[in-house]
């Protein structure tokens, strides 16, 4: 078996594969060039592709994403990095008002084939302004595709689809997964957007997860299996397109649903998933749906506090037990 690679290495690998394939792919962001990115997710790109295709920017999130948009509208496929997803707020106009709307409001005259990559999520003790899971921010805006991979191979396969997409994609890389390892992606690995993966097949309860909550759910499933509870774990991989077919099929089989999401309960993506299940899969359900999400407070700094706020294996295990016992 080939050597395992890290999620962090997979980010650079996924971008590099597309840059080799398509000369229109260019990268821009803060410290992404010779420095290789603050999370080392662009290591090697500058050496391989040079300053002409890997551009260091000032700390100007509006200029980064706005320039990516202008370049995307005129024939390039830019990959913009926003260092921490919290900083998306600094350029939110582009993600809320400009990029997702310009095709629509011009009657289809333009397309915006760009990727905004960003390091998302908590668990590393970065405090309230560098730890948030904000994938739900993007979900509030029609017109953005949203990707959040959980494994190194998925990072590569989904990066390929994101960069090749003629639509704008927000690509959430989970900070807590950067050091995690997995099988490398095979050559020409492309995972279509909007296709969930069933990570563990089970008969008793469906757990829907995303990014870092996928390994969390798999750990919880092993623990629950020891008590004879057979958990099916679905990795959504994308929030838009949202693969509700896979979720509804699973719920039809298990009759029970728990969603585990790192963004806050208020306005979290689980709300959208469960509302579709409530509308279209209600008759399949034998128990109330449960959502394990971050608490509705800012992210605290100390580990002991942060663990109280974000989803943990214990919280998910408890939620599944309640659901199954209903």
């Amino acid at each position, binding site marked *: 078996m080939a050597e395992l690679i890290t999620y962090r290495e997979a980010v650079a690998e996924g971008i590099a594969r597309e840059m080799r394939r398509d000369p229109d792919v*260019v990268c821009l962001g803060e410290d992404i060039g010779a420095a290789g990115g603050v999370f080392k997710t662009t290591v090697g790109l500058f050496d391989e592709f040079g300053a*002409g*295709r890997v*551009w260091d*920017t*000032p700390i*100007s999130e*509006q*200029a980064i*994403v*706005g*320039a*990516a*948009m*202008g*370049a*995307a*509208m*005129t*024939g*390039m496929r*830019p990959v913009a990095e926003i260092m921490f997803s919290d900083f998306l707020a600094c350029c939110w*106009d*582009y993600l809320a*008002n*400009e990029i997702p709307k*310009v*095709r*629509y*409001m*011009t*009657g*289809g*005259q*333009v*397309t915006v*084939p760009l990727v905004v990559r960003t390091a998302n999520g908590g668990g590393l003790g970065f405090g309230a302004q560098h730890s948030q899971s904000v994938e739900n921010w993007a979900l509030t805006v*029609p*017109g953005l595709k949203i990707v959040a991979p959980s494994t190194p191979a998925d990072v590569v396969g989904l990066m390929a689809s994101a960069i090749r*997409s*003629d*639509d704008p994609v927000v690509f959430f890389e989970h900070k807590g997964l950067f050091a995690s390892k997995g099988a490398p992606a095979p050559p020409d690995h492309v995972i279509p957007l*909007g*296709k969930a993966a069933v990570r563990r097949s089970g008969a008793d309860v469906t757990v829907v997860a995303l990014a870092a909550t996928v390994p969390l759910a798999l750990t919880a499933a092993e623990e629950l299996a020891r008590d004879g509870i057979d958990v099916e774990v679905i990795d959504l991989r994308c929030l*838009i*397109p*949202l*693969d*509700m*077919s896979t979720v509804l099929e699973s719920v039809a089989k298990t009759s029970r649903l728990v969603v585990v999401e790192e963004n806050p309960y208020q306005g979290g993506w689980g709300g959208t998933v469960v509302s*579709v299940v409530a509308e279209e899969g209600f008759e399949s359900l034998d128990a109330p749906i449960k959502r394990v999400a971050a608490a509705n407070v800012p992210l605290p700094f100390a580990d002991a506090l942060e663990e109280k706020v974000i989803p943990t294996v214990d919280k998910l295990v408890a939620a599944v037990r309640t659901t199954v016992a209903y």
Partner: protein
Amino acid sequence: MRTLLDMYERMAVIRRTEKAAFDLFMAGLVKGTTHLASGHEAVAVGTAAALRPDDYVFATYRGHHHAMAMGASAEECLAELMSKATGVCRAKGGSMHLTKAANGMLGSYAIVGAHLPMAAGAAWSAKLRGTDQVAVAFFGDGATNIGAFHEALNLAAVWKLPVLFICENNFYMEYTPIGAVTAVPHPAADRAPAYSIPAVVIDGNDVTVVRDAVAQAVERARAGEGPTVIEAETYRHHGHSRTDPGAYRPKEEVERWLKHDPLDIARAHLEAQGITPDDVRRVDERAAAHVAAAVDAAKNAPDADPAEAFTDVWADGSATWRS
């Protein structure tokens, strides 16, 4: 637009189209709001005359004149305002978002200043692709106090991008004099040195002055010498938007600017070139007939198809969010 007479005719068409837009609004045939550009015509037309067909333009919600200077027809613009299927954005954009991408006019943006980084990005794209295209961002004086203006100027300067930042300084950010909220007398040009960008302040109501200043900046940009800021002083003949009579502007100031009308100034230049008043009158009549026909055609066009609400979210034409 090869000649001054061509530029004059384009300005005359724009002026009459704006008048028609106002009348149609008052007749209840245009909904929402409009930000008329009457008085600003020379900035848009002078710029368009100095550009190549493959250059890029990004404009603002006061953008009817930019779209039309770049070749959008009066009919498709008025049809857009009137929610018609034949609108330039198929009635999905409206007055604030007129766009003619086929001509390089890549949109009108209604979040102040947002399009300056986009224009920098289009210029970056030209540089990456090794073309010598340039990009232009038109914006108002009010946009010079928003962050995107400053981020765009800095990026354009450090990356030496072929982009022109053209400020239509009409001296009012909406209802407030720009001088009351800005510490420098020239809101765009006085900021440019901080980014090491050359700047000029010009008479934005003289189409030949605009054309020449833009031509010079375009030449610099195509030669790889980077961005230019052009602050074109002009004045709107109406209030900020449809509901604003503009009463906050001193009467003498309004009168002074109405006497400095872009069409009058162009007429004087034409006369100096030996173009007779009869020739100019014929152009005026042609412009009037053209706009009258555009109004009729727009009125008679089919309404927007409600099914269009669910097209063109995505590049494949669909609006599907689930799989």
